[in-house]
């Protein structure tokens, strides 16, 4: 494959990633949100694989495989299982003001590109243009965490935030050292398990997974 095609393909994947984050930001059904998260992981794994192929970085193959295993198969499967067990599969979240959220999201993307500019100037290699997109997906996931009221959507937003960071690592530095990546993957997996335990505890105590019940602790 000639270089320019690869570059275009990677850019296409990055654009897709940004699109998926925006789709997640406006998605109201929890089931679709989880599916979008799986797609995000898939695009991430694919782009890591392409970067690994073109730069001949062998450890990136491992990261791509790890992403595929963890973020496309294991985590979505766990989340699907959870929503089935918790019987919230068809839950719809009432998101107020999707257009405003989208506008804030666009502003965040512009901000991310500006913030990433000095790093992009310094970066070498084919992935330099992607740092801005990576930072944008991190910020958009943060926004998603702020706007969500259901525990599961907040967790999906958290995982999508982690995906954005992973994308930043592959695009800015061709991946972190393998030990660190394995450690991060382990943390994410354990975190998802603990989130799962939490869902049951929260539901048992509040009879709902709506976080609006959990705004009692305040300084007054």
């Amino acid at each position: 494959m000639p270089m320019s095609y690869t570059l275009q393909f990677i850019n296409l994947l990055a654009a897709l990633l940004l699109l998926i984050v925006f789709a997640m930001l406006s998605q109201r059904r929890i089931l679709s949100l989880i599916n979008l998260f799986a797609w995000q992981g898939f695009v991430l794994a694919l782009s890591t694989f392409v970067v690994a192929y073109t730069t001949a970085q062998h450890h990136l193959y491992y990261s791509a495989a790890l992403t595929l295993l963890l973020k496309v198969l294991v985590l979505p499967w766990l989340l699907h299982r959870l929503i089935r067990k918790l019987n919230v599969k068809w839950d719809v979240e009432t998101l107020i003001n999707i257009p405003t959220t989208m506008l804030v999201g666009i502003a965040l993307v512009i901000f991310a590109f500006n913030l990433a500019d000095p790093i992009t100037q310094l970066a070498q290699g084919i992935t330099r243009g992607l740092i801005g997109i990576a930072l944008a997906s991190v910020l958009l996931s943060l926004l998603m965490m702020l706007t969500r009221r259901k525990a599961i959507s907040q967790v999906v937003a958290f995982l999508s935030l982690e995906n954005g960071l992973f994308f930043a690592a592959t695009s800015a530095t061709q991946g972190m050292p393998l030990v660190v990546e394995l450690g991060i993957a382990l943390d994410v997996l354990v975190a998802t398990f603990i989130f799962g335990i939490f869902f049951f505890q929260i539901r048992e105590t509040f009879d709902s997974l709506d976080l609006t019940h959990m705004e009692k602790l305040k300084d007054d």
Partner: protein
Amino acid sequence: MIDLQLLALLLTPLFGGGLLAVFGSRRWAAELNSLMSGFTFLASVLLTMRVIDSGPQVAFSEQFFIDQFNVFLVALTAFVAFTTSLFSRPYMRIEQHHGKLSTPMLHLYYSMYQLFTFTMLVALTTNNMGIIWVAMEAATLTTVLLVSLYRTPASLEAAWKYFILCGVGIALALFGTILLYFAAERVLGEGGNALLWTHLNQVKADLEPTVLKLAFVFLLVGYGTKIGLVPLHSWLPDAHAEGPTPVSAVLSGLLLNVALCAVMRSKVLVDGSLGTHFAGNLMMGFGLLSVVVAALFLSRQKDIKRMFAYSSIEHMGLITFAFGMGGPVATFAGMLHMTMHSLTKSAIFFAVGHAVQKTGTQQMEHIRGLLQVSPTVGWGLILSTFAILGMPPFGVFASEFLIITTAMHEYPWSTPILLTALGIAFAAIFGKIQPIVFGETTAKPLPHPPALIPVFVHLLLVLILGLYMPPYLANWYRQAAALLG
């Protein structure tokens, strides 16, 4: 070589966690927990002696790095973890008798307590900036289920907040770490070595300043969430107030220090790269803001554990401010204050834990006349309150005095702000604790005396260090301060 001591230090709590995961429901689980923490403390003493004798060194193909600075935190962490395990033995039993905790909950608690110690020790001793991140996140994961141990609505809310906010914070720290690696890769080449702190420290002058600047902002905000710096602190009072008291003691006395250690490691690199006081200024700003805001919030608290959580924010702000000023004296004072705060604050939480257990409420207006109910708890609480408020002759006075005189010398404008905030904090805390201890009560004295040896051991140490600092200890701290610059 320090391989053996380090191995003992790290494997003891890991093994203990595994052991208690199996035997955590047995009657002797509490004793086993204390025993493992005791061994960990012993290993930390051996390690400290070696490092003080022979200086900074790396171990296990440079994956771990011990110098005077982190070994001081290792010793402190292992010591407070040990005394807290001693305190938690009778405390958690009484909680179980009161029906607040079941055996499976205690099982979880003991196992996680050891694993939490393990993650903190890894975060302190690792040489890899990426592994610091992994260990800090793991420390959150091990404690989050402990915060919600009582399964009350409030504790679940606190744990969820802790999980989400620290998760987001630590994610930002990961972005900072990625940027650091990005800058390092250009100098050190790809591969695992580019995140090793010792390697980075050697080439810090060549690291790209613009990238490091951005990286430090992310690292400070990320780990700062964990330190509890204002405005990233909102998880801290909830987690401290709703979790079991031994967990509050280790969160407040230890975890905050470990996060600050990670920030200090980054600061050394950023200072070397920029050659300006950028990192220091940022830390001073966050530190000062935390001191002021926490002092203002103190007087509004009704819950006793929540109030002392705000006091932790205040003191961590003060330490961050001292480290931000930099220079040998301020850094020395910051480390001294770290020690004093850890010892005193955990002592306070021990005393508060017993007081709350006796009266059955955390609301300060309902706790009265502790001296009549139980003189040991009453004196323990009032003395440790005096200590944390910086009254002479306790050690907190010495460290606060050093910080403020340095501030007067270097940044005179900050002194009135600091002094006012400390004054407000004094009035708020003393005004609330005084009636709790000396007030009139109708409650009957307790039949059996509480076991509060850890409180008085900590207070004695704080008192001794306030009156007399042994030369070798002062020398050790001075060496560590020199390493941080």
